């Protein structure tokens, strides 16, 4: 009894300690958020402040739910955001001080009302108060644009992880990676490490290993198995992949036929050819072909296409064929 209580008590104590440490961390982040707020972060670093505040609340919610892992993750986001908010707001504050320190004109200069209200960039901030009188910007930024966008990709530099390279908003302003440099982004590239044309999904054009006829799929390269076994050899994967794609695309029903030469016992040959046809079917199903589109039949030596009296003939007779039976739709 005591033995079982001790580990449970240890776990509970550890959990409490972890929860308490996280709460302390949350309090320290909250203090930093308060500092940021006092420094007018809402205007100077709105995104950072919002991120810090939101994640702080989410962390506390997770702690209330007893989910320390999630709380830790949220605090991990909140803390640097709060820190950034404080840093940005300090810079922003300095700018504000500089404005306040502007020497006031010694003697009031009489100006016409239309001149005092002059607003060259039409942003609602009169030129006298506008730090950027030629570029529109909101009043809380003293008439300056919120953020610049050096690469002109529509993602402002404050959130642009690649401010000098145009990139989509979804990738934080960075261009999508393209390892093979074929102008097809890796996310859309079926062959991200081999250059290929965009109309072939970024893959190089290869000579096809199969030809789809009306009633069969012709193979330019036979499917190879381990001798006397139904294990497909690796060098046949490419041709099988092409077959899989063709069957998937054409939505047809295909009969996979296994054939052998006449060496050995007939019954064993039939069994082997069936096992090989089954192995091919299994491979194609793994490659996304629906099982109902495929049937596998082992004929053994029953249907030779060449003489079994020569080595070349026997090689031709050991084969797998693909007969198109009907369209599935």
């Amino acid at each position, binding site marked *: 009894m005591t033995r079982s209580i001790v580990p449970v008590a240890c776990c509970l104590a550890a959990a409490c300690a972890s929860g308490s440490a996280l709460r302390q961390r949350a309090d320290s982040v909250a203090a930093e958020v308060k500092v940021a707020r006092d420094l007018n972060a809402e205007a100077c670093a*709105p*995104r950072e402040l*919002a991120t810090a505040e*939101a994640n702080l609340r*989410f962390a506390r*919610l997770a702690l209330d*739910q007893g989910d320390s892992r999630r709380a830790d993750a949220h605090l991990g986001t909140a803390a640097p955001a709060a820190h950034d908010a404080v840093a940005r707001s300090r810079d922003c504050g300095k700018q504000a001080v500089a404005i306040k320190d502007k020497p006031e004109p010694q003697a009031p200069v009489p100006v016409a009302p239309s001149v005092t209200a002059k*607003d060259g960039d039409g942003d609602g901030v009169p030129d006298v108060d506008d730090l950027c009188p030629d570029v529109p910007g*909101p009043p809380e930024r003293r008439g300056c644009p919120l953020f610049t966008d050096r690469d002109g990709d529509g993602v402002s530099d404050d959130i642009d992880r690649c401010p000098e390279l145009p990139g989509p908003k979804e990738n934080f302003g960075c261009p999508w990676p393209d390892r093979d440099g074929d102008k097809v982004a890796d996310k859309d590239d079926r062959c991200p490490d081999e250059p290929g044309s965009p109309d072939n999904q970024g893959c190089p054009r290869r000579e096809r290993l199969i030809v789809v006829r009306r009633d069969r799929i012709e193979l330019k390269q036979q499917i190879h198995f381990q001798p006397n076994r139904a294990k497909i050899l690796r060098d046949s994967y490419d041709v099988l992949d092409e077959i899989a794609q063709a069957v998937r695309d054409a939505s047809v029903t295909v009969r996979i036929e296994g054939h052998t030469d006449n060496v050995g016992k007939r019954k064993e040959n039939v069994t082997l050819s069936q096992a090989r046809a089954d192995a091919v079917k299994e491979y194609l199903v793994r490659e996304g072909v629906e099982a109902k589109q495929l049937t596998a039949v082992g004929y053994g030596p029953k249907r030779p296409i060449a003489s079994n009296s020569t080595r070349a003939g026997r090689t031709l007779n050991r084969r797998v064929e693909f007969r198109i039976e009907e369209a599935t739709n």
Partner: protein
Amino acid sequence: MALRGTIVACLLLGCGPVTTTSVIDDADGALLRARAANADGYALYEATLADLYLAKAREEQGHARYADAQALAADALRFAQAAGRKASERRTAPAADDAAVSKR
């Protein structure tokens, strides 16, 4: 009696996902409207909060914690509405000023 109680309890439990989804949808719509009013430019603080709260509400909903999800979605809605309001005000403010100047 017990049966009736069970039915009522089931109905109440069943309302959780529905109400939450409704509030999330409202917040989503409000945020879209705010974004259309350029809230990202004029009310970035509120828009970011709304965005984060909405995402969190969806996450909580995914974990079937409907009460928390609903509270977060309600806050997201509040922030999104505030963002929309602020953005609209700020967009129209220069025009209003211009009008005032021209009246003078």
